[in-house]
Structure formats: structure tokens, C-alpha cells
């Protein structure tokens, strides 16, 4: 339910994501993943989704395990240090998800063209590989060969992609939807700018005045954002630079649960469907664990298990 501001409750915001819609999500390796939002999507049984993603392993693997995905346009899903995304891989192997493969730069350029309002952009990657030769649901909309009329260089033209909704998790925002981020942005900016609707979950809500004092941290001005949801630890078990580290213990537990559909169902029942909301989820993780993940203010991550300082 829209208020005077762009501030939504998690439940209300998730209701805006319809089953069958085309989404894109944030996340890079074990950070920036909008997992509180994804868990609520699973609680609300959003399904039949089409996803455009670069390497957003966490969101995609959870949604695969919940049988919420139908089509995926992608580049790479892997839990760095832990291996393949088994929920996703199994769903593909069992024919539940149709996949169209790109390279990181290929899929990101499709989003970039969408973000720019141009129907296509030339790239010098992917040609000659099976990414080029094998076409799944995109067919001729994947790319076309083109020879530059100025230089006669060979390029591929990749068409823009414009998902219905982008869901990203960032550091902080004001209630108008001005969003800031510490650290690398991966594909958050192009993903958001390419989408028709942008939902942002954040660790902190701050005054507009604070945003205007550090404009160099702003990744999205308010006019690109439709909804903001305040969700501390919203990336857990992934981490957020300057806030908290990724949770190896819970990642181990999660990865272990993805070995079979049955085990993942148990995980879902306990941690997702079995919790009413994100506070209940975090209580299940436990205060002690969450505190141990807290970022050291200087380094921006937890020093637990980080080994020796290199410099």
C-alpha cells in the first residue's frame, strides 16, 4: 500500500511482483543479494518467473529451489568457494527451467542497452562460441551478426532487455527513494535502470539531508526507484560491505540442504515458510551469530575467520 513516501512494508512490496513476471535481481558472489525479499517471495508463492541475471547465484538458487522459475537468461551461477548452485542446476537438469546462456558482458550489455533506451548495442564478445551457436528460447532475438559500416569490424548486436521489475539490495536510502551504496556496484545500476519498476531493500533509512551530503555514494536517484523497504540483514546469508560479512556457517547449512529437493524443502520449511517474517528469520539465525558477522568499521567486514592481515 503506497504511502506518502516510497517506503513499503516487505509484504506489500512483494505483492507488487506478480507471478509470471520478468524480474532481475541484485547480488554478486556472497554480497548484495536481496534475500530477505526473495524469502518473502517464496512465502507468498510467487511463481512462473522469467529471470534476467548476470551472476546473482543466491537469489536464483533460492527461487529455483522454491520452483518459482520458468525461464532464465543468464551468464554464471556459482557459490564461490562452495561450488555449483545445486537447486538451479537440478531444476535445469530436470527440465523445469529453460535457460539461455550469455557471457557476463553479453547479458550486461543487454541490460545496458535497456538502461540507455537504445534497441541494441554492439559487442565484441561471445562470437564463435556455443553461446553464439546454441539458441534456446531467445532464438533470433539473441543477437545478430553485423559488420560495422565505418570500420568493417565484425560485431554482434545484442538487443536491449527491459525486465518488469528489478529487485536490489543496497546500503541505505531516504524515504523518497534516493539510494546509496558502499563499495562495488556489480550490475545493480544497469539492472535497475533497465527495468520498468525498481524495488530497493536497504540496510538503513536515512534523512534526505544525509544523502545530499555524500552524493558520490548515490547509485539511484529517487526518480528511478518505485519502492524502498527497510530490511537490516536483508542480504543474509550473503553480506553487505561496511555492514556485515557473509555467514559461512549458514552458507554451509544452506549448501548442504541443496543436495536434494527433499532436503531443500526441509530448509525452506524451517527458515523461510516456517518464519512469518524477517525478524523471525533473523531470530532463527540468532543474535550471537549476527553479532559475530558485524563489520569491523575500518575494514568493512568481520575479522572472524579472515586469517592474517596481508598488509
Amino acid at each position: 500500500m503506497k504511502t506518502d513516501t516510497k517506503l513499503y512494508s516487505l509484504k506489500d512490496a512483494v505483492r507488487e511482483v506478480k507471478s509470471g513476471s520478468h524480474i532481475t535481481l541484485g547480488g554478486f558472489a556472497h554480497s548484495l543479494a536481496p534475500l530477505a525479499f526473495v524469502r518473502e517471495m517464496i512465502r507468498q508463492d510467487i511463481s512462473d518467473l522469467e529471470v534476467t541475471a548476470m551472476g546473482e547465484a543466491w537469489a536464483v538458487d533460492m527461487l529455483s529451489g522454491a520452483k518459482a522459475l520458468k525461464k532464465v537468461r543468464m551468464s554464471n551461477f556459482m557459490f564461490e568457494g562452495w561450488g555449483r548452485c545445486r537447486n538451479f542446476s537440478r531444476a535445469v537438469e530436470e527440465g523445469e527451467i529453460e535457460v539461455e546462456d550469455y557471457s557476463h558482458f553479453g547479458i550486461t550489455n543487454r541490460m545496458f542497452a535497456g538502461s540507455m533506451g537504445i534497441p541494441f548495442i554492439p559487442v565484441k564478445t561471445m562470437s564463435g562460441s556455443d553461446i553464439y551457436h546454441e539458441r534456446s528460447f531467445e532464438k533470433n532475438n539473441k543477437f545478430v551478426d553485423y559488420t560495422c559500416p565505418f570500420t568493417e569490424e565484425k560485431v554482434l548486436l545484442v538487443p536491449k532487455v527491459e525486465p518488469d521489475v528489478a529487485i536490489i539490495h543496497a546500503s541505505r536510502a531516504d524515504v523518497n527513494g534516493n539510494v546509496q551504496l558502499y563499495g562495488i556496484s556489480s550490475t545493480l545500476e544497469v539492472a535497475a535502470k533497465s527495468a520498468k519498476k525498481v524495488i530497493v531493500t536497504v540496510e538503513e533509512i536515512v534523512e534526505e539531508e544525509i544523502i545530499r551530503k555524500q552524493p558520490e555514494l548515490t547509485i539511484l536517484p529517487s526518480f528511478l526507484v518505485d519502492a524502498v523497504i527497510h530490511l537490516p540483514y536483508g542480504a543474509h546469508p550473503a553480506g553487505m560491505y561496511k555492514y556485515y560479512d557473509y555467514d559461512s556457517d549458514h552458507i554451509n547449512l544452506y549448501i548442504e540442504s541443496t543436495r536434494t529437493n527433499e532436503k531443500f524443502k526441509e530448509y525452506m520449511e524451517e527458515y523461510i515458510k516456517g518464519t512469518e517474517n524477517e525478524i523471525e528469520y533473523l531470530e532463527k539465525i540468532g543474535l550471537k551469530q549476527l553479532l559475530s558477522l558485524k563489520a569491523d568499521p575500518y575494514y568493512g567486514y568481520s575479522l572472524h575467520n579472515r586469517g592474517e592481515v596481508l598488509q
Partner: protein
Amino acid sequence: MKQSVNNVITADEMMVFAASQLFKDGDVALVGTGLPMIAAYAAKQTHAPNAVLVFESGIMDAKASHMASGVGDFPLVHGAVKTSSLFDSLSLLQKGTINLGFLGAAEIDAYGNINSTVIGDYQTPKVRLPGSGGANDIASMAERTVILVKHQKRKFVEKLNYLTTPGYIDGAGSREKYGLPGQGPEKVITDLGVFYFDAATKRMSIESLHPQVSLEKVIEETGFEFQHIPEEIPVTEMPKPELLQTIRDLDPDKIYINK
């Protein structure tokens, strides 16, 4: 931080050393974590102090404060010269500013092509692998690329299940035909030896084998025929003790090497 020096060099250390030797001073390299990252830092601490490390996540000129567990991990973000985007990093690769890239492989063929997408048919795969990521981009666009891979028969195959990442594709002239700007893979470094690609056929050939590695072992672990095997096979150059110690010091907790 120092460990007692053990002069028996491990296969991981050989790979890191061989990879570090391929850095030229001033190279701008797109690296992954793991062995290439250690190799890059070893090069920076020795003969290539001006080499710059870029990670695809948008990390420019990283100076890791702790060992990183991934290419977007926070110890690489902390202390970076610029925190940017994946689109920015890979655009620098397309432009040619990033000139050196490192690749791993689930499967590799004689032309240095790599599969990291599926085992079995693409549409109905037996095993779905992670997919290209930045690998196809590096292989397509980086001026120079180096492949680091464990030498096993199931990885060194005659025919890939899926060509994710182009080496020389079908041989000489293929890359030009598809308009790929990079030069193709320069070397393959494995735990058994160092390999190059024959100038005429673009098929993999033996350059050197690591100490104590026999030709028989290499042939046994390779599912295709090498284009060229030297009559007298050189032994891969070994690092001097100080450099070996440098490499070991770079991963004091044995996260990536000698784990």
C-alpha cells in the same frame, strides 16, 4: 607470517610461479581469486611492480587487506583505488585497456577452447555447470590469456560438450573469422607442465613439464594428441627460494595453495 622454508615445491606452487612469470610490468590483468590472484601478487612483488589487478565485480587496482574468497569479496573492495561496476571492468577489457586475463576450465580441448556450461546436451543437460561468467569475455577480448587447469583426462578432452569460451575454435583463422579482438590463449599451465599452441595449427603442444613429471603421465591424462612434443622435453623453470617463500607468504593460511 613467515613459514619454515620447505624446499620441496608443490604442484600449486609450480603453477603459481609459472603463471607469475607471464606478467609483464605494467600489465593490467583481469584476475580471478585463487591461484591467478596469488600469481599476480607474486609478480607485483617481484618483476612486475606496476602490474594492476582488476576484478570483474568493479574492483580497480585491488590491494587485498586479507585473503579474498571471491572476486567481489570485501578484502578486495577495502583499499581498492576505485570501486566501480562490472560493466565498467568488462568495458575496459573490450577497449583493450585490460590486456591480460586468466581462465580456469571444467573441460578443455586441443585448441584451448573451454567448456564450463553443461555436460551432455545443452537443451537437456546431464549436468548443468555454472556457465561462462566473464570467461568468454576474457577469452574473446583480452589481448593475452593464460589458462590454469588441473591436468586430468576427464578435463583434457577431444570434443567439448559445449564451447563456452573460445580458444582457437577450429584452428588457425577461426578467431579472425568471428572478429574476436584477443590473440587467443598464450599458455596452458597445469599441475603437470606448461603448454603452448602451435603457430600453424593452433593445437596444444608441450613446452615443458614440471620436475618429476613423466611424458607418459601427461599423455595418460590428456584426451587428445599434442601437436608437438619436443624431442628432449625441457623441465619447467623453478622459482628461486626467496620467490618460493614470497609465494608461500602470500597465502599464509593456505587457502588456495597447498591446502
